């Protein structure tokens, strides 16, 4: 037997599921506002979540590259300072060589010049083997320390290699770390390969020994010192340019980071104003349905019995 009625059970079930749905919506909005995140689980918005993951990766990568750029800038600055020191040394050596070439200085004068030049030679050697804050050699290319070694005879030779190595600072851009010891200290004078160390120590030896004409030896050394100066100032320019590049890229990185953060916020963050309005709307609907539910459910014929 069938008949159609208005089942009381069905009314309660319906009211329950409607108010339940409103409560669920309320809780979702509430969580979105409380956490500030629109996407709780990947399944809330699979594509959005995947894009958020990609942005997270970009963010982490950006932070790493910023750190790399900062370290690179540090190394370059350190290198620039050392090269500055080398340039000052060479300028003083040139003054000494010019003095020795032009003024009759006598034996004591030459010895003094030789003393100073030997001091310079030591300082130059120390500077060539200088290290970054983290202890890596600045002028050894990608090879390990030391960059230069001095044999028993006082001859200094390059121990590094010719590769500079580079640091990726933004996707697709790698900046070379610095200059190698070869680039900084080795050059040709009149077709003969020599080094800054050799030029200075040869001059010191000539001053010290007193054999031959020291003025001529000094005169000859000036050409070598000039070449060494050229070399050092060229390296200084190269490093300066790279530093400027790194600074430009650091600014780039910051604007990229802001970009990524903005995108992230667009996709993953709760639109507070929008959500609060929706929350309020749902709240009103829930209150209204609760009120109407109590009204309707209290309508019963049993009160009339």
């Amino acid at each position, binding site marked *: *037997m*069938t*008949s*159609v*009625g*208005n*089942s*009381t*059970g*069905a009314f*309660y*079930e*319906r009211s329950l*599921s409607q108010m339940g749905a409103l409560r669920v919506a309320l809780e979702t909005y509430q969580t979105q506002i409380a956490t500030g995140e629109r996407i709780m*689980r*990947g*399944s*809330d*918005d*699979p*594509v959005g*979540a*995947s894009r958020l*993951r*990609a942005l*997270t*990766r970009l963010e*982490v*990568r950006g*932070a*790493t*590259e910023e*750190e*790399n750029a900062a*370290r*690179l800038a540090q*190394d370059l600055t350190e290198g620039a300072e050392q090269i500055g020191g080398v340039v000052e040394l060479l300028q003083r050596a040139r003054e000494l060589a010019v003095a020795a070439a032009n003024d009759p200085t006598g034996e004591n004068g030459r010895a003094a010049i030789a003393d100073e030049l030997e001091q310079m030679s030591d300082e130059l050697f120390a500077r060539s083997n200088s290290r*970054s804050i*983290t*202890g*890596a050699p600045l002028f*050894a*290319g*990608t*090879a*390990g*320390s030391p960059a230069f070694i001095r044999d028993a005879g006082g001859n200094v030779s390059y121990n590094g290699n010719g*590769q500079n*190595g580079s*640091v*990726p600072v933004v996707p697709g851009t790698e900046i070379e*770390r610095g200059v190698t010891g070869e680039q900084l200290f080795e050059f040709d004078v009149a077709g003969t390969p020599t080094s800054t160390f050799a030029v200075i120590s040869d001059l010191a030896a000539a001053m010290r020994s007193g054999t031959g004409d020291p003025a001529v030896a000094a005169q000859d050394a000036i050409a070598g010192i000039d070449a060494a100066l050229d070399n050092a100032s060229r390296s200084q320019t190269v490093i300066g340019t790279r530093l400027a590049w790194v600074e430009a890229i650091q600014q780039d990185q910051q604007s990229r980071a802001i970009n990524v953060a903005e995108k992230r916020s667009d996709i993953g963050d709760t639109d507070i104003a929008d959500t609060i309005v929706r929350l309020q709307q749902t709240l009103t609907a829930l209150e209204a349905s609760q009120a109407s539910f109590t009204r309707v459910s209290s309508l*019963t*014929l*049993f009160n*009339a*019995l």
Partner: protein
Amino acid sequence: MSTSILNIGRTGAAAARASIELTAQNIANATNPDYTRRRMEQTELVGTGRIEAQHRSTLNGVRIGDVQRFDSEFGQRQVRSSTSDLARTETEMRALGDAELALEETRLYEKLVDFEASLTLLESDPTDPALRTGALETARQLSQVFQSAEFALGNTRALVEDELTLGVSEINATVSELSRLNVELVTAREGSSGRAALLDARDAALRDLSGEVGIDVEFDQFGGVEVRILSNPPPPGENGVLLVSGSNVSQLTASQNSGLVTLNVAGTNFTAVSGAMAGRSAALADIAGRQTELDAIANSTISRANAAQAAGSALDGSPGQPLFSGTGASDIALVLGDGAGLALAPAGAPAGSRDTSNLGNLIAAFGADDGPIAAKDRLLLSLSSRISGLGTTRDGLEIIKQSAEANLLAETGVDLDAEATELIRLQQAFESNSRVMQVATGLFDTILGLR
């Protein structure tokens, strides 16, 4: 004659009382979801006789008839099939939601990105021991996160397997209950309250059963049921495997082999088409697939890292040793003991080399479109897309189920307003009948009072 009137009044009052009892029963069960509303049938009691051509009838009042049960076979069927469909989707969605939680909360993706970042950081200063140790420790955390993701996913799978076992015993219990009801229905008297209660129990059992697994039901003349599980593949000429018929019951068993669930009844292997069992089967297959994918990601992490190590030389210039051991997410472990062992320089490079070309290769292999990071993203994306799709299906099925339930309740549910009206009507009927008895007494007294 007045005795007869008194009798008529008595039957009327009795019928009204019986109806009031049934109405009270309806009201009492208004919130019982398994209850179908009932009504008392009444038939007129007339005695007729014939003596030669003389036709005589005696009026004897009313007879209390059968208990009518407002059933709706179609409505029940709708509810059963929509329950099965919803249960399938909901169960699968819940299980996959747990799997998603396991994969997201272990933050494996973030750890993979961290490892990539720790390697990229080494580019700036490949000989810095702090950076090397940092990268090595991130690798250690990565291997642990792989294991905890595998563990969490395995836990989710174990939970679903437990539910599967529980589901099977629940189905078997419901099925024995149904066979008992089948037997009792044969002996129950037609039109009795007892039979109506048995039928309610039968429909409730069928609804419970359809939540667990999709069923096809046929009724016999006593109201007993023949239940088949809708199966894939179906037996020839039928749409399902026979589970219960009369008092005969076949036990359901389930077996599982690497995520593939097979149900078995009386030697026939099959898979469920709908119901929670089908949802669990689908979820188990899906989770097993995700475990394989996770293993593949772990394996690609291990092999890419170790291949790069083998192609390079460590800080001391020695050939690179493997970074990870193991073949999958469950056994991945860090084996390199010291950050200095990270082979960042190409093979043959001298000790202390700051050449990072091998490191560059490792980073590129790790972050490649077919590398572990991208694979993990794809794994999460496909899982959450699946759940999101199931959510949409679930919402649709929920509406269908709600409307099927509303339709069924409209036919079978108790309407308190209708019952209240009935109560008033029956109260009046009872009072009228007592009035009739009073009148009959009055008539008798009048005759006795004649002098």
